[in-house]
Each structure stands twice: as C-alpha cells, then as structure tokens.
C-alpha cells in the first residue's frame, strides 16, 4: 500500500508539473486569463453555489416537514446539475445567424418538458413509496418516508 501510494503521489505530481509547464509555455497573457477562470470557478462553486445550496436546505428544513422533503431533494439533485450543464444551450450564447444548424433546438421548451417529467416521476415515486411504507408499516430504503 505504501509503495502504491508513494508511486501515485510521485506520478501525479509529475503529470501536474507537465501540465503547468504546458500552460506556462502558452505565454503570460494566456496563463493570466486561465488563472482568472481557475480561481473564478472555485469562488463560484464554494462561495456562491455551495452557500446557496446550504441556504435553500436551511429554509426548506424550516418550512417543510422533514418527511415531506425527500421528493424535492431528489428532484433538485437531478435537475440542478443538468440545468447548470445546459447553460450554454439555454442561453444560446454561441449562436450565429449564418449557421442555423448550431444551437437549433427549442431549449427552454425542452427543458420545461424535462422538468415536468422529472417532477412528475419523483412525485409518483414518492406516493408509491408512501403507500408501500404504509402497507408494510415499516421503513423503506429510498428514504422518502424517513423520519
């Protein structure tokens, strides 16, 4: 285990150092812009997104009974990442009038259909779980009926 770990750290440091060398080789202006985006990504995640998630969780825990929250957690864990990944499409930032084959879908309509289907699926799942739990009178490992 010790040898594997030491080998892993050594290999990883070498690979990362090669990446740093490749990056610096692209010139200072390129590196500066890259650093801005590297730091910006962490700040946006740790300082904004993660804090928002905590805030939403705190508010939800106060407003909604704990045993009713599971379906909303499931829906948000599914929908928030796919929506973030879809920002370039939803905003159509790269669209160009001379190329109608690029970003050529009705993205907001598709997104709305996806949200509706996921929310409907989660609610149906929650009702089914609640019924099953009620019939069995026991616990269920999807947690929808948790305490």
């Amino acid at each position, binding site marked *: *285990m010790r040898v594997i*770990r030491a*080998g*892993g*750290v050594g*290999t*990883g440091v070498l*690979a*990362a150092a*090669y*990446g*740093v060398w490749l*990056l610096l080789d692209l010139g200072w*202006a*390129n590196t500066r*812009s*890259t650093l801005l*985006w*590297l*730091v910006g990504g*962490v700040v*946006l*995640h*740790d300082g904004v997104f*993660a804090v928002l998630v905590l805030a939403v969780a705190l508010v939800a*825990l106060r407003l909604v009974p*704990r045993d009713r*929250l*599971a379906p909303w*957690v*499931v829906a948000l*864990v*599914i929908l928030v*990442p*796919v929506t*973030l*990944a879809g*920002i*370039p*499409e939803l905003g159509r*930032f*790269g669209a160009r009038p001379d*190329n*109608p*084959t*690029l*970003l*050529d*879908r009705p*993205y907001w*309509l*598709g*997104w709305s*259909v*996806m949200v509706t289907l*996921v929310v409907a699926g989660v609610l149906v799942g929650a009702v089914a779980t609640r019924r099953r739990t009620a019939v069995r009178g026991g616990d269920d*490992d*999807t*947690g*929808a009926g948790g305490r």
Partner: protein
Amino acid sequence: MRTMTRPRVPDERDFTSWLRSPTVTARVGVWLGVCFGLAFVTGLVSHWAQTPSPWLPFPTSPSWGYRVTQGVHVIAGTAAVPLLLVKLWTVFPKLVARPPKEARDLVLHGLERISIAVLVAAAIFQLVTGLANAAQWYPWRFNFRPTHYALAWIAIGALVVHIAVKLPLISAALGSDVDSTALDRPTLERGPGVISRRGLLRTTWVATGVAVLATAGSTVPWLRKVSVLGVRSGTGPQGVPINHSAVYRGVVAAATSPAYRLTVAYGDRQARLSLADLRAMPLTTASLPIACVEGWSAGATWTGVPVRALLDLVGTPGGSEVLVESLQEHGGERLSTLAGNVADHPHTLLALALDGEPLSLDHGFPCRLIAPDRPGVLQTKWVGRLEVAT
C-alpha cells in the same frame, strides 16, 4: 444576566448531515474518477489526432474511431457534472475544517489542501470550458485547445495524488456497507434524515443518466429526440450539420467563381483542375462520419476523387505528407496536414457530392476533404490547393 456570544466561524462539526459520509463520497468518487479517466484518455486521442505530423501516425481505421472517442469525451465530461457537484457537497465541511496544531501534521495537511484546491479548480475549469466550447461559446481570452490540454494534465495529476493520499480511506469506505458509521465524523447525525444514503446514491446515478440523455443526441443518432439540451438536432443542409458557414469564413465569391481551379503541386510539377475536370475523374463513394472536436457527429455518404489519384497526376511518391489549403483566408481550419497513411487511403477523398447531390456551399463546395477517422476540424472545406513538399 444575559451573556453575549459572538457569532462563531462555522467549522466541520457544524455540518451534521448523515449523508456526508466517506462511504457515500467514495462511491460517487469512483464514478467521477471513471469519467475523468475516460475524458483524459479520449482527450489524449483527440490531441494526437490533431497533431500535424505525429511521430506515430494516427490510424485511418476504424473510420468511426474518432467519432466514438470524441463522443465519449464530451459525454464523460457531461456525466461528471452531477457526480462532481454531489461529491463536492459530501466533502464541503472539509473547506472549513480547522488545521491540526502539530507542525508536521500542519505541513502534510497544508500540502493535501493545496493538492485538493488544484484538483477542484482544474476539475471545474475543465467541465465549464469543455461544455461552453461544445456549444461554440468562448467567453475567455485563453487559447482553448492547448489550455484545455494543459489543464487536463494538471487535473489528472491532482486526481492521482488525491487517490493515492486517500487510498486507505477509499479502500475502507468501499469495503464497508454504505450505512456503516465506522468512518464518519463523530458529529454526524444518526440514521436517515431527509433521504437515505442509498437514496442519494441512486438519485445521483439518475441525475448522471438524465444529464447524458439530455445532451448525447448530438452524437448518438437514436437519442436525438430525447436530447433536449443537445447542441445540435443533427439536421442541416443535405441532412448534415455544419460548423462554420461559407459566409462566416468569407469564401462565397472564391468558391462559386467560374475561374475556380484546384492546384495540385509537387515541387515544380503542378496540375490545375477545374470543377468539370474533377467531375470527369474516376469517382469513389464512401460512407464516412463527420465527427467534430466539439463532440457532435453525423454519418454521411460522400462521393469524390481519391486524393491519391490527384497526387498521381503530378507523380507524388506514396507515403508523402500533403498540405491541404482552403480558399478561406482566416480561421483555424484553413490548413491541414494529411500524413502519408491518410493521403494514400482509398477513402480519403476530395468530395464533390454528399448523399448523391453536389456539395452545398456550407459543406465546402466546390470540393472538401473527407478522410476516415479524422477530426472534423481537419476535414478542410473549400479546398484550393494540395501541396507536397519535395
């Protein structure tokens, strides 16, 4: 008497969710590692495919090879988004963990924190820039391709360091039941709260599947209908999407001019061919995908003159490297190099027709390069010159 308490800076103990356990983190981490590994390896393949004169020639077979590797590259990156967000959520309390007091521990702790900062920054950077690039959105100043490549080495290096450092914990976490509390911080709540650990894991797998289904139709034809967030619907002139139009590249006049001639040059020997000359040559038809570096792809049937037949007109020896030059005066895809094995392949064509009809202007009229197993950015459109150095 009332005592005033100063608000305390939160630390690790304040995060009590039962879900933030190493047993959950390790399970999500395995799949995140798989996605980053796939994206890294397929990224290296793409880098190799785009290197003008690699010491080891990029293969020409299977013809759909690059379509698959680059499709996997973008799909793996997209799948990593939910996995990364859930994984970072499970370890978020570490961000506010208090450093150890002993000097030796402090140094090790500091080094680990630096490696994790590098990993998180590089991972977010790769996903954000990759997804934006796939939608042709470039809101940055750095040069995307070499920077994405450099950061890939940094991300994978930091990931390998992270796995090596955490190996005992990962191994213990994967070896225990997901509900085991043996590895948990002492301040975690007991028992399932809002959702169970298995419930969170299942939800994460579903989220990953939804992210893939919502986007992969750009390269997997049978998913086109469900990929509501796909960059392309897969349609376009002659049933094939385009990346850059003739208008955008400013080649309309040159490409449609009756004076158009294709020049084939080998040293001081030259052939100049009109479109009619090209059409009069023996033509080959081949089914070859157009597979873009941005991850979209489409299959099509192309008809044209084999590049080898054109090289034979000026007596070029077999295995020669060919520089293909477009009529366009700017843009990264103006020039491309055909390695000897590609130039000589019987299905490497200067295509004149797509699915039996003359090429549309946006697909590269009067003729474009199409070769097997080759990134779309190197399938030069509006070809004006083929040149072989002596």
